[in-house]
C-alpha cells in the first residue's frame, strides 16, 4: 500500500488504523506522480496508469493500476472514505456517487473511465459547513440506524429528486430500490426524501 495517501494528522479512529497499518509513509505520492494523460498504458498491463480525476470540483492527478475502480480510487488512494463498499458487485448501492451529474455505482466503474467527468461524493455535498438539504433531512427524520448505507442513500436520494422520480412514496420506493438498508430504515428514508424534495425545489426556484 505504498501509494496510500496518509491523512493529515488528526485523531479519528480510521486515521489511526490507516497509519498503524501502513509501514511505508509516503504522503500524497499518488498526487505527486506525473504521468501522461492516459489513452493507453504501456504494453505491461501492470504498469500504473496516469490519470486526472475530477472529484468534488478538484482535479486529482493519480497513477493507478488499470483495475482500480472509482470506489477503490476514492477510498484507498484519495482518502475519501465517505463512499462505502458494501457488496462490491453492484447489488447494494452503498457506493453510489454522481458522475457527470448522474447517480452510478462506483464499484462497477473503472476510475480511468471517469476521466473528463465531474465526480461528486458525499464529501462534496456540504457548502461552507452547511449540510445539503438531503443530509439534514436524513438527520431530522432519523433515516438510518447503523449508517453504513447512508452516504449511498443520500447520493441516490438527491439524484432521485433531481430526476423527477420522487413524486409519490411509491415512486420514491421504486426509484430508491437500488439502495439496500439492512437496518430497514426505509420508512424514514422515504420521509427524509419527502422533506428534502420540498427544500430542494424551493432552492431551485430561487
Amino acid at each position, binding site marked *: 500500500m505504498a501509494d496510500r495517501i496518509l491523512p493529515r494528522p488528526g485523531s479519528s479512529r480510521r486515521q489511526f488504523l490507516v497509519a498503524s497499518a501502513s509501514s511505508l509513509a509516503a504522503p500524497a505520492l499518488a498526487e505527486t506522480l506525473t504521468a501522461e494523460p492516459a489513452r493507453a498504458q504501456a504494453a505491461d*498491463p501492470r504498469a500504473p496508469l496516469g490519470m486526472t480525476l475530477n472529484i468534488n470540483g478538484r482535479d486529482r492527478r493519480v497513477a493507478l493500476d*488499470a483495475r482500480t*475502480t472509482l470506489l477503490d480510487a476514492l477510498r484507498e488512494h484519495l482518502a475519501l472514505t465517505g463512499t462505502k463498499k458494501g457488496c462490491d458487485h453492484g447489488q447494494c448501492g452503498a457506493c453510489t456517487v454522481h458522475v457527470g451529474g448522474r447517480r*452510478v455505482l462506483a464499484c462497477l466503474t*473503472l476510475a480511468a473511465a471517469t476521466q473528463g467527468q465531474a465526480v461528486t461524493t458525499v464529501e462534496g455535498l456540504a457548502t461552507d459547513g452547511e449540510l445539503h438539504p438531503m443530509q439534514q433531512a436524513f438527520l431530522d427524520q432519523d433515516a438510518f440506524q447503523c449508517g453504513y448505507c447512508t452516504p449511498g442513500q443520500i447520493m441516490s436520494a438527491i439524484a432521485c429528486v433531481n430526476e423527477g422520480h420522487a413524486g409519490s412514496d411509491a415512486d420514491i*420506493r421504486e426509484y430508491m430500490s*437500488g439502495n439496500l438498508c439492512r437496518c430497514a430504515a426505509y420508512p424514514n428514508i422515504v420521509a427524509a426524501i419527502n422533506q428534502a424534495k420540498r427544500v430542494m425545489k424551493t432552492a431551485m426556484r430561487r
Partner: protein
Amino acid sequence: MQPFVFERADSPDAALRAATAPGAASSALSNPTQYLAGGTTLLDLMKLEVMRPRTVVDINGLADGALGRIEPRRDGVRLGALVRMADAADDPTIRRQCPMIAQSLALAASQQIRNMASLGGNVLQRTRCAYFRDVSYAACNKRVPGSGCAAMNGINREHAVLGTSEQCIATYPGDFAQALIALDAGVEIAGTDGSRTIRFAALHRPPGETPDIETTLLPGEMIAGFDIPLASWMRRSLYLKVRDRASYEFAVASCAVALDIRDGTVADARIALGGVATVPWRARAAEQALRGQAIDDATIAAAADSAFAQARGREHNSFKIALGRRTLARALRQAAAIEI
C-alpha cells in the same frame, strides 16, 4: 481481477481495429479484447474472474455520435447501442408508442445501473446462474466447455424450462431483449469489414452443444444500434415481470405482449417470455393460437398452454411452467383491457 491493458477509443474504427487484433478468438465472448460501455456486467464478471480479458477498450467516448442517439425512423425508431437504459426508459416517444419497451427497461435493475448500462451491453448481459458466476464450481459448460453442468442436478430454481439442452439450463436474464424479439427488431452490427443487420432473433444462440458461444457476434464486432419497427396498435403493449421481490430483481417469469385487436378479434399478437428460457424467447405458437380469435378465458388458456407445451422442468424449477402460463395469461388480459 486479472491485469488488463486499458484503452479509450476515440472513433468507432479505432475501437473495431483494437478489438480485432491478431490472436482474436473463435467467439466474441472468448475474444481477449472486450468493449467497455456501462461495465455493469463486464466488471462484475471480471471481479469474479469469470471473464479475463487482456485488453479493455472503453467505447463510451463514442456516445457523442449515432451510437448515443435515439432517432425517429419512418416506420419506427432507432436506438443507438450506447443509449443508456434510463434514457430510453424515459423517452416520451417510446413510452407513448410502445409501452412494452419502456416498461421492460424501467422494471430492470436499479436507477444507478440503468444510468450506467448501455442498450447494446444490456442485450449481451450474461446469465445469473450461480454455478456460472462462481469459479469454485468446476462444472460449467458455459464457463469451461466440456466440464459438465452443476445446475442440472443442483439448485436449479432460477433455471430455464424452455430452450434448454443437455449441456446447459442457464436462464437468459434480460428484459429489454424480450421486447426486441417480440417486435422483430433489427440489430445493426459494426465490424472492420463494414456493418451488417440481422433480426434480433438471430443474435442469441440457444445453448445446444456449445453454451459457451452465446451470440452470433464475431470477435471484434460491436452492436451499433437497434431498429425497432413500430405500428400504432403497439400502444396496446406491456411488459409484466414477476419476481421474488417487488423491485431491483431479475424475473422469475416475465412477458412482453403487444396486441392488435380489430373488431373484437386478434389481428396480430407479439409475445415473448423472460425468466423461463435460455435465450430471449418469442412464443410464436401462442401468437398463432390467438390470431383470428377473441380474447377470452378459453383462448388465453390455449395460448398459455401452447407457449409452454415444450417446457421441461427440473427438480426446483417446475413451478415456472405454471407460473409462466399464468404470467402470460395475466399479461394478455391486461393488454386487452388497455384503452388506446
